[in-house]
């Protein structure tokens, strides 16, 4: 699978969980890997590349961290949108 396609799958996976479940990195890696038959390592690399450019972000609440889709406020703050 092309990287861009895999990243779209990851994005869709995270979006589907929005408001329902706080996803850990591992939840995404396991879930997307099962959905796409990509290796967990490939999913991990693709997901982290998305985090590095702000397409996904780490969030924190109640003592534990999760991966989420960034809010507009976050993207604006990082200079990614005007």
């Amino acid at each position: 699978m092309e990287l861009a396609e895999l990243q779209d799958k990851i994005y869709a996976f995270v979006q589907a969980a929005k408001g329902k479940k706080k996803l850990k990195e591992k939840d995404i890696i396991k879930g997307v890997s099962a959905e796409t038959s990509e290796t967990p390592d490939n999913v991990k690399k693709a997901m982290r590349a998305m985090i590095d450019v702000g397409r996904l972000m780490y969030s924190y609440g109640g003592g534990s961290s999760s991966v989420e889709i960034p809010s507009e406020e976050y993207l604006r703050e990082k200079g990614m949108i005007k």
Partner: protein
Amino acid sequence: MKKYETPLLDELEKGPWPSFVKEIKKAAKKSEMANDELGQLEKSYRDRRGYWKHGGIVGVLGYGGGVIGRYSSLPTEFPGVAHFHTVRINQPSGMFYKTDDLRTILDLWDEYGSGLTNMHGSTGDMVLLGCRTEALEPLFAEVTSRGWDLGGSGSALRTPACCVGKARCEWANIDTMDLCNHLTQMYQDYLHRPAWPYKFKFKIAGCAVDCVASIARADCSVIGTWKGKIAVDQAAVKNYAKGGMDVQAEIVDMCPTGCMSYSGGELKIDDANCSRCMHCISKMTKALKATGEKGASILIGSKAPIVVGSLLSWVIVPFIKMEPPYTEFTELVDKIWEWWDDNAKPRERIGEVIEVKGMRSFLEAIGVEPQAQQVYEPRKDPFFFWKEEDLNGNK
């Protein structure tokens, strides 16, 4: 700059000890943030409630830790602390700094933050207190361009910490600083990208004196120990006695395993029964010295939360050689993390998971054989119960 009356905080300036209020007031002379911090803190003391909001989505791009979001719930009244995020900077092993480097960080902090610091936080990091959200990325760029990096926070590996070890201490059985640096470099990914159910801390002590309090605070404590005998310099023992030390009361009677005796001015140690607690060596440094093979004990599972649920570490490996490249240890760590990650619920530390699942299944999973030294504490109840007929009329 608005001047706040702080009668309650002023009380904390009295007395001969260092005062954080004194320090905040010094910073407040040139920092609006520190000034408003004083105002909000006084109000907190007066109203007997906190005005901080914790958490949220602050951080630097690509990192999941190192910044702890903090906002004032009274931003209109105290605009200087509307954003007051904490930034953790990974401390050098053993907390040794060159003055120039410290000055660099603190100058940057005056420029981008409140100027207030906590040297050091309980995790070990250098803690910079009070940064606005928009200043985080520029501060991060400046700090990292000078060779520093953020520490850990959230569900990640927390910045490994160690005692001063061989740099300054003759009791160190392992090179704590080298191991601490090795783990920090090796596990950068785990430090900056939170992937686990909760936090995980390494603390490394050179000996059982445990200056870094690893046994009470670290999910994985590494404590230096030795296999050989304790060498006794009897002439030095006599000097201690001559100098006023009550060797029987202060040393022999305090030995937890009772493996020492003192008679005719001579100190004897039954090394086979010594638990390497370091009490005698730390009291009679000139007379006693650990000899033979050096290494470390690995313990697991302690935590020191603020309210309830503290745990002490539990020995899982009584002795392991601890020399570069530390492969035996890091392979064990990988297995520990895998088991924890597979079995923990969100916000469960590894010690709690071991309590739930049992040490037996943990040891099986990580491939460590059960050993007598892994006993958490001796049983207080007997294994064997006498029956009436066994007692022959005696009770």
